[in-house]
């Protein structure tokens, strides 16, 4: 789960990690007022669920309230397109107004999971403010890592090594030790999959300050943090993805026209791969889960139908614990609420197959059932092709 920079900074602050004075605003008027209140050179930062904002014009410095007004006006009507958003961009609905800070030096600091060692890994670099993966590629000697043993955590000596590797001196070493330990504490208590401070800076007045911060939460741990739900900014998500989340469906919108409903993530990915191999373009990734029930199947099918780009649907369900008649019933339930004349190809395998097939064949839907993945994909792609031909004539 993603959150905004301003939310991440509030969390940092609550763990004793210094951040610039700032406040989040949602209107031009509020932006003006905040800049007036700070009474100094300020920076306006567009809050979106993606990085690369600076280069895309989403971060601007302003001298006074008047300038803040102009910049906020421009940002708030913008769909910001950065290297991470895709071509559609993300709407700017919130702006972080911050005091600017005179910077002496920039660093990079993050903690995330290292899958190879199954440990959280702290990464620090004296080269901050830039793309860390680029640093890792070009000058790996400038990256310092600490694989944290969960049984002993980040000890003073660990953190001191990090501080020294960054070239810190005097009181800043002690400040850095505290900061690193607090960051690890934050990661654990908040169940983060990533906390990244980039850049972490030394200000001209010799303070360590987190200038920009990114936090991702572990989706599997959300049950421990019911308060996270209200942090979600719906304006940053696809409306169908929001709906899918409500029913605990893994849904990702793609650019094609064949809606897909599959049980199991691996099989869903494989299904998309075969669709592409046969010349089809999937409209989505949708995993209804291993043990989906009738309601869940119906909700999943409705989400597919709501995507106006969808011109045909392929269902691929490998039973096991799911019964084929339940799947058929779910599809029929959905089409009672949202009518559907699109071609549907259903590949089912599992228990109560004949019951499922006969339910579908009696449903009056434009549906065909097939027995194998290859047949199913060939069939849906062929039917979509036919349809295109009719239109062309």
């Amino acid at each position, binding site marked *: 789960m993603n959150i905004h920079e301003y939310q991440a900074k509030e969390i940092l602050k609550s763990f004793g990690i210094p951040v610039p004075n700032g406040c989040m605003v949602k209107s031009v008027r509020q932006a003006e007022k905040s800049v007036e209140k700070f009474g100094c050179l300020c920076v306006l930062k567009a809050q979106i669920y993606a990085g690369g904002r600076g280069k895309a014009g989403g971060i601007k410095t302003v001298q006074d309230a008047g300038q803040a007004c102009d910049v906020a006006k421009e940002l708030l009507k913008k769909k910001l397109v950065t290297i*991470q958003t895709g071509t559609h961009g993300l709407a700017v609905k919130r702006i972080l107004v911050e005091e600017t800070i005179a910077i002496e030096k920039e660093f990079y600091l993050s903690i995330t*999971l290292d*899958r*190879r060692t*199954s*440990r*959280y890994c702290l990464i620090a670099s004296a080269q901050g403010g830039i793309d860390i*993966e680029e640093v890792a590629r070009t000058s790996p000697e400038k990256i310092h890592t600490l694989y944290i*043993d*969960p*049984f002993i955590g980040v000890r003073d000596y660990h953190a001191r090594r990090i501080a020294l590797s960054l070239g810190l001196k005097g009181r800043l070493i002690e400040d850095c030790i505290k900061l690193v330990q607090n960051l690890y504490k934050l990661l*654990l208590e908040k*169940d983060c*999959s990533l906390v990244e401070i980039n850049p972490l800076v030394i200000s001209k007045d010799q303070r360590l300050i987190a200038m920009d911060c990114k936090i991702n939460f*572990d*989706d*599997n*741990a959300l*049950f*421990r943090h019911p308060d996270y739900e209200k942090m979600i900014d719906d304006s940053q998500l696809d409306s169908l993805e929001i709906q899918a989340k409500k029913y605990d469906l*893994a849904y*990702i919108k*793609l650019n094609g026209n064949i809606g897909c409903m*599959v*049980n*199991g*993530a*691996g*099989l*869903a*990915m*494989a*299904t*998309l*791969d*075969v669709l*592409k*191999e046969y010349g089809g373009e*999937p409209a989505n*990734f949708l*995993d209804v889960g*291993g*043990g989906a029930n009738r309601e869940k199947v119906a909700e999943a099918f409705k989400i597919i139908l709501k995507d106006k780009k969808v011109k045909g649907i392929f269902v691929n369900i*490998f*039973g*096991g*614990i799911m019964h084929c008649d339940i799947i058929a019933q779910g599809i029929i339930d959905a089409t009672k609420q949202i009518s559907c004349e699109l071609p549907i190809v259903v590949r089912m*395998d*599992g*228990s109560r197959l004949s019951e499922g097939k006969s339910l579908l064949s009696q449903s009056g839907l434009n549906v065909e059932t097939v027995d*194998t*993945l*290859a047949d199913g*994909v060939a069939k849906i792609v062929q039917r979509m092709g036919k349809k295109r031909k009719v239109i062309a004539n």
Partner: protein
Amino acid sequence: MAILINRNSKIIVQGITGKSGLLHARQCRDYGSHIVGGVTPGKGGTTIDGFPVFDTLNEAILTTQATVTMILVPAPWAADAILEAADGGINLAVCITEGIPVRDMVVVKKYLHQNKMLLVGPNCPGVITPGECEVGIMPGTIHKKGNIGVVSRSGTLTYEVVKQLSDAGLGQSTCVGIGGDPIIGMDFIDVLKLFNEDPETKGVFIIGEIGGDAEETASQWIKENMKKPTAAYIAGLTAPAGKRMGHAGAIITGGKGLAADKIRVLSECGVTVASSPTKIAQAMMQALNKQDCNS
């Protein structure tokens, strides 16, 4: 022979009184697995559907001499269940539970380093030795006794692969679903080592997917150690970057974890990679034939 489990394995089910716990305990018993009871704290001393229920795993082990556990405990308590199994002296824990927080698994994984218990999963379909024993949630009927070892990061995709193998007459020695999470117990190499030493296994099929570098690491090991013909399929060739594709582990970030890279490395290390999930059996056959020609 086969690996990990056989007809003599004595199995306990942690979380047996839950809906899915009971369902799968029954299904495994119907398949022929020797399910000797279950654990649900607070329900000790009762029986459910003929299975004796214990309050703690220690008690269950003392009474039943179980050496294998199947864990179907809900995610908030699943890490605790794995630790209880390791602490109690179980040899093999198969954790089906999906959605265990990473923070919990980091601790579990570290504890397992100093413990002899093998962990399969979490977030996996389990283990099956066809015709003998199932410890998991896979549909038993699609499996066929034979000589192909299957190891997979996926669930239903494994069923798809197994069905194609069975339909083509390629039965399986044992199928192991190692799970789709970023932190799992046994990895590809741990399972490949067992298949390598198992006389019943004549060939191995690997099912991988985007995310992490487990397939790349396994490739290197195969190149240096694998004595048996190996084929593979990697899902997610067309997956968009940065999105979590259902499995917590299936995400491509910063150019790492791409399916194309995994396929290339596997091929370079002598593994026959299926070009499509519809051509599983062909790839396995091809790998087996290649070996015949070489010997």
